[in-house]
């Protein structure tokens, strides 16, 4: 593995991460604004972003803090929102499982929606990638996103008192997730899985945050495999 190739993998990761900055910037800024509004200090808000780096669960935790929920309940809810990342971890394992221990620890820390989605897409499109390139590509994506996430949390904290809170920014999240998932729909099995996911998630929306989604995801994955197997038998 030459240094040039490693650099190439890193920068293609950075380049692929750039479109996601559009989402990360308003979200991190909003988080900074809301956190300061909720009474967190600058240090608390920043360490929240640096240690956790998980948009949705940070907002969930903040919302519960505002409602004066018990700390155990806040923790449980925030972690439930993040449970989907166990699935990401499992999906990355066949690709990155043979990396060194310290690399796997770093990847674990930086394993969030965007880094996972971009990396898995890349690995599936280029099955010949070497493990070292896979790791550097992942780092290129993850470090870019994480840097912007933390920088703009700080920015949000700073401007918090100046700009009036406009909660409509929160709809940027669904728009971003829809744009991410649409290009991944390539077969009837994908469509079936997506539909099952939507229907079950909506039906179980009353359950505590995150748990309904987890059940929906497992059913949807099973659906995907069943439809795929069925279609293969037909042809």
């Amino acid at each position: 593995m030459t240094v040039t190739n490693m650099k190439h993998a890193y920068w293609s990761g950075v380049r692929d991460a750039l479109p996601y900055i559009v989402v990360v910037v308003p979200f991190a800024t909003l988080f900074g604004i809301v956190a300061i509004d909720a009474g967190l200090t600058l240090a608390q808000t920043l360490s929240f972003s640096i240690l956790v780096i998980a948009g949705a669960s940070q907002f969930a935790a903040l919302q519960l803090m505002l409602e004066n929920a018990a700390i155990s309940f806040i923790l449980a809810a925030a972690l439930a929102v993040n449970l989907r990342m166990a699935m990401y971890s499992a999906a990355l394992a066949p690709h990155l499982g043979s990396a060194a221990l310290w690399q796997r620890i770093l990847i674990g820390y930086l394993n969030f929606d965007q880094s996972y989605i971009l990396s898995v897409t890349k690995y599936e499109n280029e099955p010949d990638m070497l493990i070292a390139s896979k790791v550097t590509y992942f780092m290129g994506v993850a470090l870019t996103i994480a840097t912007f996430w933390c920088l703009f949390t700080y920015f949000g904290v700073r401007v918090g008192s100046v700009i009036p809170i406009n909660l409509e920014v929160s709809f940027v999240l669904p728009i971003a997730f829809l744009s991410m998932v649409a290009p991944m729909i390539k077969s009837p099995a994908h469509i079936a899985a997506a539909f099952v996911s939507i229907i079950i998630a909506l039906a179980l929306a009353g359950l505590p945050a995150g748990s309904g989604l987890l059940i929906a995801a497992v059913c949807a994955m099973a659906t995907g495999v069943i439809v795929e197997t069925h279609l293969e038998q037909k042809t």
Partner: protein
Amino acid sequence: MAIGTFAIRYSFLGLIGSRRIPTLIEQMLRYTPVAVLPGMVAPLVLWPTDATNGVTILHLGAAFAALFVAYITRKVIWGMLAGLVVFFSPLIITLL
């Protein structure tokens, strides 16, 4: 929360390492994104958490625009731009 989140994210990478995982599990895992994201988005679209009272034509229009454009172009960025333009169209029109 930081420790818990890390444990979740590291879980399988650390445990499985380079061992092979069963084909069925691997097959299921390939559906993770299409299985997780739609279920996460659907409630957010139908019951938005912003200042407006419930879902509006703007929410639905923006969601559809993002999905449609990203599907046709196969590029995340165009879907996002389409969704954002539709969603903030009243604001954009006012500014023009």
